[in-house]
């Protein structure tokens, strides 16, 4: 196990275990750790298929939820304003349309973020950041 870190690129599992178990004074060769880690990350992961499926499902679902939430917020706001101002059906009608628009807008904004970073473990809005939501 002590000589495991010097084994160069390759078995990441044994390499990492070797590093944490190495009790000797000599500094372990952490220099090539970065390249070894990158190499290991590029390899295939067993959960990859599952994850991309989960991401796709999550993205599709969040678009639907975004649209429904817009409409729900519109109906809620219109209904509350109506009962507050006593303008019974009219503001509800207006805000239903505003809600549809808002739902589409929010769904569009989210969909833009999916394109920016498809990987789930990366923040999805790299680069164009929070600006697009104002």
């Amino acid at each position, binding site marked *: 196990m002590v000589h495991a870190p010097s084994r160069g690129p390759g078995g990441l599992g044994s390499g990492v275990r070797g590093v944490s178990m190495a009790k000797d004074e000599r500094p372990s060769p952490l220099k090539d750790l970065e390249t070894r880690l990158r190499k290991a990350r590029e390899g295939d992961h067993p959960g990859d298929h*599952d994850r991309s499926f*989960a991401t796709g499902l999550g993205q599709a*679902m969040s678009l639907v*939820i975004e649209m429904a939430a817009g409409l729900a917020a519109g109906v809620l706001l219109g209904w509350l304003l109506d009962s507050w101002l006593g303008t019974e059906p009219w503001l509800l009608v207006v805000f239903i349309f*505003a809600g549809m628009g*808002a739902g589409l807008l929010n769904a569009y904004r989210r969909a833009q973020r999916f394109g920016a970073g498809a990987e789930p473990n990366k*923040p999805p809005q790299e680069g164009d950041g*929070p*600006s697009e*939501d104002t």
Partner: protein
Amino acid sequence: MAAEEHHSPLDQFAINRIVDIDLGGLDASFTNSAVMMTVSVVLITVLMVFGMRRRAMVPGRWQSVAEMSYELVAKMLGETIGPKGRRFFPIIFSLFMFLLFGNLLGLIPYSFTFTSHLAITFVLAALVITAVIVIGLIKHKHRFFKLFLPSGVPIFLAPLLVPIEVVSFLARPISLSVRLFANMMAGHTMMHVFAGFVFSLGFLGFAPFLFIVALYGLEFIIAVLQAYVFAILTCLYLADAIHLEH
């Protein structure tokens, strides 16, 4: 099949009172949901306090978990809000860990998923959006309302765009809470339905059983992903309130 009646797939979301507490007519009983919330808070505290006790240069298993979750949230804040986001770290980290543990603990058989209740997720989302409004108003005073009128838009479009922007802002807590609640509830219901198939199909039940195994893995990913999504959207909404000039 007759037993299906008392074994509805939705039974698992039932709230049971464990200790009855009555606060002046207000039902504040300690329920199974409250038990799971307490358990997750205790587990998070244990993980953080005991995981970081040794503070080793080369972290052990528990310290790695604690450091990874710290770095995940710190990176998320840095990339969405920027250096100003550091002061929101405690709330975002607490929120993320609370939801993560709630989602993951819910996957343990016979436990309870408190994030599968809209009441819980909506309270958290309402908290977030209230914080966004309050922070925005404190930081930008009346200029905060420019959020509802994107700059560079001709003024005659304002009557059309302002209601849409207002509604789209109000839709945020709804979509934030419904996304988490729906994901959790749908997943758990689906697992229960397929678990029912395993028994009712007899020998052929191995097919739904295999499906449940795959679904369980998927649910595990969704549990983590949804906690992450909730946290990152909170960060983005906070970023909106802070960087109004965009």
